[in-house]
């Protein structure tokens, strides 16, 4: 199986699994406790926290462990809007992940001000349009760094500069789930207040993520309870996952150069071969300002549902949009926000590379895709 759906999830790096193993039995403790068993777990948790913090330019206490990207996004947005500060509004973009957009919809149903800023045909949000949408009531702006469907890069630094200039009290959140591992993440350089990452997108365990929360920012928790994570996120810590995530963060950062060079070349190679061999092909991923590993392409006249099934039969794993409750593919809101019609969105497929991808896979996948597309046409 040629796995080209790394944006959905990635295999666990072996060193991550190894790092996690002791925490099943040998070091099984709950970090919140007095005795030695707890203290050992606490120690491991805090070492993991420090490692992650140092690798993204943050302080340890600015790292909140969560169950993943979705929870981190929820905490960032709900936490900012529902906090005790008077501001209650949200500004975000039309191409965010559902974890942000559904949260936005929830807040809207509560009667809170929510503005969704549109994007251009490359799925890019314009910093001045975002700044223009902000007012005195805006608690938080949320813009993802790399879009999960197309790989479009947003100019987070420019956005944060403009937003802070207009409204210094508005918090800036970025969902960096797809960016981590291919883009440089330094919270100071980015000028942001809140940042989401998710371990299973870069070789770490599923069910583990962090929310970076700049020192001094108070968020209303999403999970209330025992008060772990300085009250910000209650619930017994999954120390194994935290340790695994820290190991994955480290590995991913060592790997970033390879993403920027080799893996990016694999993605480019697939793109070239498809454009050359698969007849009419429209590339939805922008030429510039894109991640190293996403490729979203449209095959006019070919239903993505049929193409994905046949790719599966021929050993290539790819995806389109997200799956609905019954398992059918839904029409991508990202592609629609870029200006594609629903029919065009239904002709689009996403291929994403990851830490296990090889150049040979890119070539073989290209041949298989072109073969199927030609036959279907």
């Amino acid at each position, binding site marked *: 199986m040629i796995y080209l759906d790394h944006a959905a999830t990635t295999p666990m790096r072996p060193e991550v699994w190894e790092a996690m193993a002791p925490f099943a039995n040998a070091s099984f403790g709950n970090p919140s406790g007095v005795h030695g068993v707890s203290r050992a777990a606490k120690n491991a948790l805090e070492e993991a926290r420090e490692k992650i913090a140092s690798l993204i330019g943050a302080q340890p206490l600015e790292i909140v462990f969560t169950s993943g990207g979705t929870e981190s996004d929820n905490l960032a947005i709900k936490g900012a809007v529902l906090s005790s500060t008077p501001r209650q509004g949200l500004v975000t973009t039309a191409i965010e992940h559902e974890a942000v957009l559904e949260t936005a919809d929830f807040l809207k149903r509560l009667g809170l001000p929510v503005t969704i800023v549109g994007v251009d045909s490359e799925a890019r949000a314009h910093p001045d349009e975002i700044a223009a949408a902000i007012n005195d009531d805006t608690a938080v702006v949320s813009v993802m760094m790399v879009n999960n469907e197309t790989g479009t890069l947003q100019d987070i630094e420019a956005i944060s500069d403009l937003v802070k200039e207009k409204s210094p009290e508005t918090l800036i959140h970025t969902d960096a789930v797809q960016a981590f591992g291919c883009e440089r993440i330094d919270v100071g350089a980015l000028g942001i207040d809140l940042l989401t990452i998710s371990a299973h997108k870069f070789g770490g365990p599923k069910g583990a993520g962090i929310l970076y929360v700049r020192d001094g920012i108070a968020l209303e928790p999403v999970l209330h309870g025992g008060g772990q994570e300085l009250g910000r996120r209650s619930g017994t810590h999954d120390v194994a996952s935290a340790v695994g995530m820290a190991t994955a963060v480290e590995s991913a950062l060592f790997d970033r150069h390879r993403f920027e060079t080799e893996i990016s070349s694999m993605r480019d190679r697939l793109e070239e071969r498809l454009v050359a061999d698969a007849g009419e092909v429209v590339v939805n991923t922008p030429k510039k300002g894109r991640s190293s590993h996403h490729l979203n392409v449209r095959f006019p006249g070919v*239903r993505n*549902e*049929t193409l994905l*099934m*046949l790719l*599966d*039969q021929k050993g290539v794993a790819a995806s389109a949009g997200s799956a*609905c*409750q*019954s*398992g*059918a*593919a*839904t029409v991508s809101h990202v592609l629609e926000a870029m200006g594609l019609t629903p029919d065009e969105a239904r002709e689009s497929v996403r291929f994403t590379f990851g830490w296990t991808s090889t150049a040979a896979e890119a070539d073989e996948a290209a041949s298989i895709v072109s073969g199927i597309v030609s036959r*279907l046409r």
Partner: protein
Amino acid sequence: MSGGVDSSVAAALMKDAGHTVMGVTLKLWSGPNGEAPSAGCCTVSDAEDARRVAAQLDIPYYVLDHTDDFRDGVVDKFVADYATGRTPNPCIECNRTVKFDRLLARLDDFECDVLVTGHHARSREAGGVWQLIRGADAAKDQSYVLSMLTQRELSRTRFPVGELTKKQVRQVAAGMGMRTAHKPESMDICFVGQRDYRGFLRDVAPEVFAAGAVVDGEGREIGSHDGIAGFTVGQRRGLGVAIGEPRFVIRIEPGSATVVVGSRDELAVHSARLHEVTWSRGSGGDGPVMAQYRAHGEPVPAWLEGDTLTFDHPQEAVSPGQTVAFYDGDVVLGGALIAGTG
């Protein structure tokens, strides 16, 4: 694979016979916010049942989105039929336009040879000609809802379950350890679910609930109703009139939103006007036929001439919008939709 025991066993039988099988569930309908149906047929839990059986059989499994085709071919027609005083059978329209048309058209794309369903019917090929035949279990026979199929469809469809009785089907499923072995059959329309169809129509086509008069055969007003969509020819209950003798809906007049009610004698009709006539062999002809005009009813002798079907004896409950299937013994010769009666 609907998640029911019939399609589950159909998949198993084909796999046992040595074929390479791929299981698919059709996504046909979602609610206003995109939510999957949670009651009636083809719900999320039904899809989960289908998925689990496919995993158990170790066959690939996919969910195919045919919501547009279904809305256009089935739901819109359902609403339009009720609005014009007809009684539709959406499951038949789904067979006609989605399953055995749009889905069948994708077989070549999928590199598949045949479409297999769990319908209780049989098909046989002799000398290059395909025949659709009633299922082995007369009480469960579903050939009526497949009566529109012609050679084009029959040659590329298989109905493995039709050779078995329902009891045998459940036994096969139980023997394979399928959780769906004892799952009750769904009798609901998949897009209506727990609301009955009236509630559905009220939501999507409130105009079919315009109030009107209930009149007798002479046109005298004897009551009122709150929407022609609540009535079907032959209906006895819910007429809102108390006369002493049983009264039945004998006609629905959509133009004036009038429901005409009469005695049992008045209910009987001598003929029906047909449309969308199809013949299993591609062509058929005028002459005597055995006509079954209800899903569960015995075929009755009649004479077909052009698009007029004249019954040998007066028939009750012949409803415009319903299907009439023509039989020669157990063999389906063809079918048609009832446009009107006389």
